[in-house]
């Protein structure tokens, strides 16, 4: 069966999560989804959330995935975030096939390679911004001092250096979401995955958070953003539309950063 084969061909590159990164940066896409299918239930009651989705995201890209509710974009988000595994097809994250990994390995992948930004912020309550940002580093087993330094730097980056010791309840929605962004990027993940990051924010806070994401992308972070707001999607370089579990359009608005010298299509 597949898991054995997949396991063995994954074993090499996964040995050290960061080893291959520098040398293969140019050649390997950050994520590569190949004919991914997700079905809930079976028989007559089966729900086909994804009916064969294929696309690749290059390093440094900023992709917005749009679709009406029920289009499968949340399912796709869960699979891209390694929170769920596809029923069929292949998903390579940073060159590693993660579609058939066991629970423990998935936790490791989520920790090292993915940074999440959720619609409802999902900060740990009654815990300072600093501690929230440190959390993924703590799970990675980093020493307290180094963790502290990096979390501090990440908070500075999102413009909240002076709010490090505030608890989430003492921060505005926009500030909370920026803390979440800091938490997502503190591990220097291959991919920042944002699920409707502005869905719960007013226009001012939306602008703040999007500015932070724009800045991140300009400094080279790969971002995949799920949204149903066209204004938000406009910030992305590339727009993918999902309808009924299939990609209907895949349009590039702006070039990839390292392709900027070539002529832009679309």
């Amino acid at each position, binding site marked *: 069966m597949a898991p054995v084969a997949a396991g063995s061909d994954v074993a090499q590159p996964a040995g050290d999560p960061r080893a291959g990164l520098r040398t293969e940066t140019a050649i390997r896409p950050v994520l590569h989804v190949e004919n991914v299918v997700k079905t809930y239930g079976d028989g007559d009651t089966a729900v086909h959330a994804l009916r064969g989705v294929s696309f690749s995201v290059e390093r440094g890209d900023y992709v917005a995935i749009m679709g009406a509710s029920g289009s499968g974009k949340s399912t796709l988000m*869960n699979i891209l*975030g390694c*929170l*769920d595994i596809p029923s069929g097809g292949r998903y390579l994250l940073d060159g590693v096939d993660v579609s058939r990994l066991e*629970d*423990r390995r998935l*936790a*490791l992948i*989520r*920790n*090292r390679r993915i940074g*999440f930004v*959720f619609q409802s912020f*999902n*900060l*740990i*309550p*009654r*815990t300072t911004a600093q501690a929230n940002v440190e*959390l*993924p580093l*703590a*799970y*990675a*087993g980093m020493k307290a001092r180094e963790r502290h330094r990096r979390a501090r730097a990440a908070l500075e980056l999102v413009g909240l250096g002076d709010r490090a010791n505030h608890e989430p309840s003492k921060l505005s929605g926009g500030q909370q979401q920026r803390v979440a962004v800091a*938490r997502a990027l503190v591990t220097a993940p291959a991919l920042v995955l944002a699920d409707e990051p502005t869905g719960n924010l007013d226009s001012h806070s939306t602008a703040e958070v999007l500015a932070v994401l724009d800045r991140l992308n300009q400094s080279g972070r790969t971002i995949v953003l799920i949204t149903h707001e066209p204004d938000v999607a406009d910030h992305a370089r590339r727009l993918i539309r999902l309808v009924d579990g299939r990609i209907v359009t895949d349009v590039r608005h702006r070039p990839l950063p390292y392709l900027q010298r070539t002529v832009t299509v679309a």
Partner: protein
Amino acid sequence: MNAYETIRFALRGVTANKLRSGLTVLGILIGVGAVILLVAVGNGAQQAIQRNIEALGTNTLTITSGGGRNAGATSRSTQLTPEIATALVNHAMAPDVISASPVVTTSEDATYNGTDATISQFVGTVPEYLPAENYSVASGAPFTTSDVTAGRKIVLIGQTVQSDLFPDGGAVGKQITVNGTLFTVVGVLANKGSAGFADPNDVAIAPISAVRASLTGYGSVSQIVVEARNADRVDAAQNEVTGILNTELKVTDPTNEPFRVLNQAQLLSTRTNTLKTFTVLLAAVAGISLLVGGIGITNIMMVTVTERTREIGIRKALGARRRTILTQFLVEATVLSVLGGALGAIAALVGAQFTIAGIAPAIVPSSVLLAIGVSVAVGLFFGSYPASRAASLRPIEALRYE
């Protein structure tokens, strides 16, 4: 995630809802406290009884007539007499016997100066009886062998008798009327602890000759109290005494003796065993409350896990492993139970300073260690189900949970 981090996360979880954590801790506190305190009460009772029996004298044997089913059918005498007591003090045949005191006991009304009192134990005996039964004279002087020989009507009275007849003190030298006979009080006995229901201070001790002459008549004696060389030689003394008695009373069937030899040491061990059972029973009852406290931990941890499902989802999304989540909640449960255990131990130590139901509790150190150890185990055991539920939550479902 090192141990320090894990414990810090757990402490944060515990302090997040102080009232709820406090009530859960209280459950364990009561359980552990009850175990330690009730074991201490049982132990205290045991020690008290032991002290009292030792005060009665653990190196004595009490011989009473009785037993011997067909004794009445034979013509031979099976009665105990002062002569038998004399025969028991035999250095050749009974090297472990120091003294043998014949004792007659009666209950008499005594009067002094219009005050009446019933002396429940009016004892007639010889001077050797006093050391054998651990009586000492607080004021005045004990009677002597010559008093016994002369049949002088003198008496030593216990504390209860003194307070009944001489509320103002000054008993020594006064004459009390016992059943129409005048006895002169020559001394007052020191206070003596109780081993049973009878008040050992409600006693009067007089020379056996005087008591037989004026109160009981010259029948058999009620008992013979034998003092052994020391507590270790009581069993040997018992064998020697039994041998002499068999010869004196011409017993042919040793399984059917017309007398009984009561060994205080045996009585002590019987009582101690009874109290041990009693202590175990108390500990078992307390253990049940510890169990209930443990169920309280499961309950509160289930609530915590449900309430923090979303948080668990976030942690999993951020890369927390199954084991990390499991450890976090297990440690949280254990922190609750250890806190309860430690506070329970302190509460029990404080409670043990007071007298409970007339018993001064004596803390058993091993029960403290055991109860705290058990409380840790309780935390791990009762926390494991909620913790494993938390650990096995699927991140997407946990994140979606409202």
